[in-house]
């Protein structure tokens, strides 16, 4: 190595990736060891926004957050679901051991109310987790939410469409979720504050419907061919 380079290194004027320390920001484990490892061993950041980018519902996106919901609701923290696209099904949530008294569903009519509600939830000490399905968000709206999230110390997950992956966002963590044909959820880390993007992992989501792939499908062959489809 040349002399000049050596001097630069010794002077500490160049940041070196291998000296990167584990980030110390507060976080909640995701409950999935594989994903935790990819997220620097810590999980969902607290006091910051996270984004899940996905195109279709029913790919295991709620199951991704289920361990967190179970833990927080068990600790008496409130979980808010803001503008969910479908009805969160109470018997299924109860079966997963979530304390439904701590789950509050909020519906808002317009974007102004949505942002206001989300901000208020984020700033409150009672909130453990906010899951929100925004319509269209401007970049400055996300920044406003990020500031609100920093004021509190709870986990906030925004579910957005995958086409926003290219759009710049101040969220601390952005995950790109994609299903495959074997009931796995492929997670691509688009952005992680204090680290590099690009890691990916795959979570098995067969447990959400008690399915196991080694077995032959347990369908009683019956009405499908006969019904003409």
């Amino acid at each position, binding site marked *: 190595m040349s002399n000049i380079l050596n001097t630069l290194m010794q002077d500490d004027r160049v940041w070196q990736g291998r000296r990167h320390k584990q980030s110390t920001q507060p976080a909640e484990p995701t409950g999935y060891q594989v994903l935790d490892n990819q997220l620097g061993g810590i999980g969902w950041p607290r006091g910051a926004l996270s984004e899940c980018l996905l195109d279709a519902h*029913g790919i295991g996106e709620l199951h991704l957050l289920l361990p967190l919901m179970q833990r927080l609701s068990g600790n008496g923290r409130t979980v808010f679901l803001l503008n969910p696209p479908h009805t969160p099904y109470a018997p299924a949530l109860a079966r997963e051991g979530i304390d439904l008294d701590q789950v509050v569903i909020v519906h808002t*009519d317009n974007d102004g109310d949505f942002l206001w509600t989300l901000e208020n939830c984020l700033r409150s000490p009672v909130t453990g987790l906010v899951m929100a399905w925004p319509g269209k968000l401007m970049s400055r709206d996300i920044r406003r939410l990020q500031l609100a999230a920093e004021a509190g110390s709870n986990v906030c997950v925004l579910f957005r469409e995958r086409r926003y992956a290219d759009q710049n966002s101040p969220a601390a963590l952005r995950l790109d979720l994609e299903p495959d044909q074997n009931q796995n959820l492929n997670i691509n880390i688009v952005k992680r504050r204090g680290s590099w993007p690009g890691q990916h992992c795959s979570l098995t989501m067969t447990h959400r419907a008690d399915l196991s792939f080694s077995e032959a*499908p347990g369908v009683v062959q019956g009405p499908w061919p006969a019904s003409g489809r």
Partner: protein
Amino acid sequence: MLWLYLHFPHLLLDHLRRSHESQGALVIVEGASHKVIQACPMAKEQGVRAGMRLKTALSLSPDLHIVRADEQQEARVLEDQARWLYRYAAYIVLVPPDGLLAEIGSLQKLYGGLPAVWQTVEQGLNERQLDAWIAIGHTPLATRLIARTGQGECTSDTGHTMRTLSQLSLFDAGFEDKTCIRLQRLGLNTLGEVFSLPPAELAKRLSPEVLARIQKIQGTRPDPQTPWQPPHRFRQQTDFVQEIEHSQGLLFPLQRMLLELEDDLCWRQQDTDSLLLTLQHRHQEPTRLRIRTSGPEHRAEAFLKLAQIRFEQHPLRAPATAVILSVKRFIGREAPNERDLLGDTRDLNEAWHTLISRLQARLGSDSLTQLSPQADHRPERAWSASDVVRSSRRTPASELAQLPRRPLWLLKGPKPLTETPATWFSGPERISGGWWDGQRVHRDYYIAQLHTGQLAWVFHDARDGWFVHGWFG
């Protein structure tokens, strides 16, 4: 018995001035005769006097605010004062239109002497910015007469009271004009001279009623009084001299009313969870705004914040001439939870109620729901949404394990299946029921994966074909 009388010489004027920070001269005018009956100090400076005709007053002070006297309003304001006085004295008698009588003989020991009682009341009056003439006497009527002439003194000495009384002129003693004239013709000019007449002669020459009145003043004839009982509700009205056009302008008078409500609730040791605000308009139906909190609350500050959110959401339809705050529902105040020594839970409880109340105030209480499972086999009826309440009931774990495997997302209604699923996993699970209430359901449920990778809960209905009913999210 010892009585205390409060005479409010210009109650309505004080009431109006209280809800007003800055304003010009203000007078109260009698409805029929157009005469000024009460004038504020600023009006007096400009030469307006009580008893003057309105035209004269207007020529003296052209930008005079004029308020017409209203008997009902006066009675209401008087009742407000009674409610306040009830904190200090239990036995209160309303003397419309402008007086309050309270029995204080039994209170001397409580307050530590008559001067202390006097001082307490006087201080309260100052805080409420009310002008009142106070008197103490041995009979209700005598006390009233002394108070009305403004010669009240803090003494329980009967002799002193009688001396003050005997110097009163006949007019001040409240006799009718005809009686006054007759007594004057007899050569009597003060009440003391009337007292010295033999009762039998008086009854014969004048009338038994006059004798009864004199004896009631002296205390030789019983004068029973009906004590006033405070109603079990809170109602307060603020009238505006100038109409308020912006809802922000309502917050200032509202804050004072809410502070009084807080005081009142503190005295009752009660909380409330719903307030009714009625805004009166000149030409329109009054606007009613109900402000709910999610839990028991008594702090004015909390109510004010909720009101502010409501006002932001609902701008005024028309300028408001008066605002009425009423509370009918009271909740006994609970002792703080004993479980937590450090009080953390209580703070969280409070924060929870604050947050939920704020959200409900802005979004409407229908927008917030909580879910719970219901005992029904039909998926769309196996859950219910209810209002948000803070509770700590827990379903036993054994019950939970028995629930069948269900998707986390339920569609708002079944959606027709448009493609052949890629993979089939399990099924059928037959759900048939509802014959008892006409919502018949007869379906075979399957779990299947679509080509998009979504795991769906699909069913085949015997009549209508294939539908998606849920996503395994």
